């Protein structure tokens, strides 16, 4: 394992931004339950995989508001969001613009929206600098990596190392299909994320959208022996039994609730899962809250 110290210590400003977000969510949960004291973070419902809309869409603002309102209606306390460029690979200017809009949304929604900093690792130092700026200075909680590069390509390593230094979560787009996906020649899968985790066991890696990444049984088996990789349950695939299978193979502590673009299906999947209420609470937010609290401040 190779790791080099990089980056500066995260700023007090970033600490305050994230603390305010956590407090706002706790207040919201307390209001919804009528409790006098804010509940423990594990009771929060945190969607770890959400997307706001690119501002090239004329309806972006209404769509973002509708997303936040829909989340509230189905009991989601917090949305962890990124904005992706419509065309990829993203340029540095392109991902910086997206991240600026995410920052605006974080401020506009007062703690309900948390930000992922999206970068294309192929941008090299510009990607690393963007992660340091957004997470270290502006209160983003993590890094969003898409399909520009395989996650175990060495060009990605400086971004991973920056995230480790900051204690940031890394949400990685992933999927394993048995027929080629047009337009995604460099999509990572659970196997590649396991490889990356062996190189960086301290990284807070999330394998994205179990239910939107092809053969979910393959993904679960590929991650079985990668104990530091988390798996998010998001996606549109409605298959019965997927949550229970993931719990059985990986253990409940490695699973994170998410919706991606399918809010109702994402929530219903967790509602349906035949697991204990304690385990459901962990997946719905407790596990992610633990990861977020570990973001270095």
């Amino acid at each position, binding site marked *: 394992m190779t790791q080099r110290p990089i980056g500066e210590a995260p700023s007090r400003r970033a600490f305050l931004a994230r603390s305010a977000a956590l407090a706002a969510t706790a207040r919201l949960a307390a209001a919804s339950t009528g409790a006098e004291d804010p509940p423990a973070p594990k009771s929060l419902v945190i969607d770890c995989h959400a997307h706001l809309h690119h501002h090239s869409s004329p309806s972006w603002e209404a*769509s973002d508001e*509708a*997303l936040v*309102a*829909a989340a509230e*209606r*189905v009991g989601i306390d917090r949305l962890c969001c990124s904005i992706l460029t419509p065309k990829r690979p993203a340029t540095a200017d392109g991902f910086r613009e997206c991240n600026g809009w995410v920052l605006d949304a974080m401020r506009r929604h007062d703690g309900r929206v948390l930000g992922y900093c999206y970068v294309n690792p192929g941008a090299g130092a510009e990607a690393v600098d963007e992660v340091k700026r957004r997470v270290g200075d502006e209160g983003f909680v993590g890094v969003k990596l898409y399909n520009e590069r395989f996650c175990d390509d060495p060009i990605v390593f400086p971004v991973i190392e920056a995230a480790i230094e900051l204690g940031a979560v890394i949400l990685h787009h992933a*999927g394993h*299909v*048995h*027929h080629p*996906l047009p337009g995604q020649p460099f999509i990572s899968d659970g196997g590649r994320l396991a490889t990356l985790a062996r190189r960086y066991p301290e990284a807070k890696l999330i394998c994205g959208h179990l239910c*939107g*990444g*092809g*053969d*979910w*049984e393959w993904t679960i088996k590929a991650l079985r022996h990668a104990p530091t990789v988390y798996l998010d349950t998001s996606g*549109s*695939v*409605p*298959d*019965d*039994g997927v949550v229970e299978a993931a719990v059985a193979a990986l253990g409940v502590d490695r699973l994170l609730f998410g919706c991606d673009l*399918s*809010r*109702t*299906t994402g*929530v*219903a*999947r967790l*509602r*349906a899962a035949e697991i204990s209420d304690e385990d459901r609470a962990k997946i719905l937010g407790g596990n992610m809250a633990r990861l977020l609290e570990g973001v270095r401040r």
Partner: protein
Amino acid sequence: MILDVNAYLGPFAFRALRRDDAPGLLSRMDAKGIDRAAVSSALAITYRNVQPANERLAADVRGRDDRFIPIAVLNPAYAGWEDDLRACRDLGFRGLRIYPKWHGYSLSDPACLDLVDAATEAGMPITIPIRVEDVRNQALLTDVAEVPLAEIAALVAARPKARFVLLNGVGFINGPLGRAGALPDNYLIEISRPTSIPTDEVGRLLTALGPGRLAFGTGMPFQYPDIALLKLELLRASDADKARITWGNAAAWLGLGG
């Protein structure tokens, strides 16, 4: 009262399904408050000759006609489908389920139209799953496309006296199937796959087509039943309209009354 128009008995060739036998499905229906289910064989999706799968399903649901409505899978591209249809009627099947992409024919093929006509003559609704599972999940041996909504629109226009129930589909709102008056009102759209909040295709279909054109279905045991149940819960509609969706519309076509 809840009638599930989109249920199956397993097994399925490419993935293990939970509780895919009749007692298992009944236990799931009881747990979720579902009174009756229109069930077909998941084995028949991949059998060359579908009839043994239909016969097995008939045996599996025998004596439970208070809960199950047997739906026959027929393949008009295979020899002897006319005999199979007669046999299925004798076995008590109340409707058909067809898989044009899995069985290798087009909805506009003369044999398919003959099957639709024969089913209509027999008073049997025709259910069409737009897909069986997400295309991204398909095994190496299968590369089966979804049934294009344009082909379905052409079929419902070509056979206005037939009754179709469209399962596991999405995107109706973007075409003639989602526009009032564009096509005959001879089809129901099952709600497990169209989006709910925030984009709310289910709600927009209700507005565009009216409460008489939607039907409740879960996709059990392929799918979590709670997805359709939550979409129903979130749908802004009167109790009377929801009753038509969960029971009245499809029950009338299947001759269930109530």
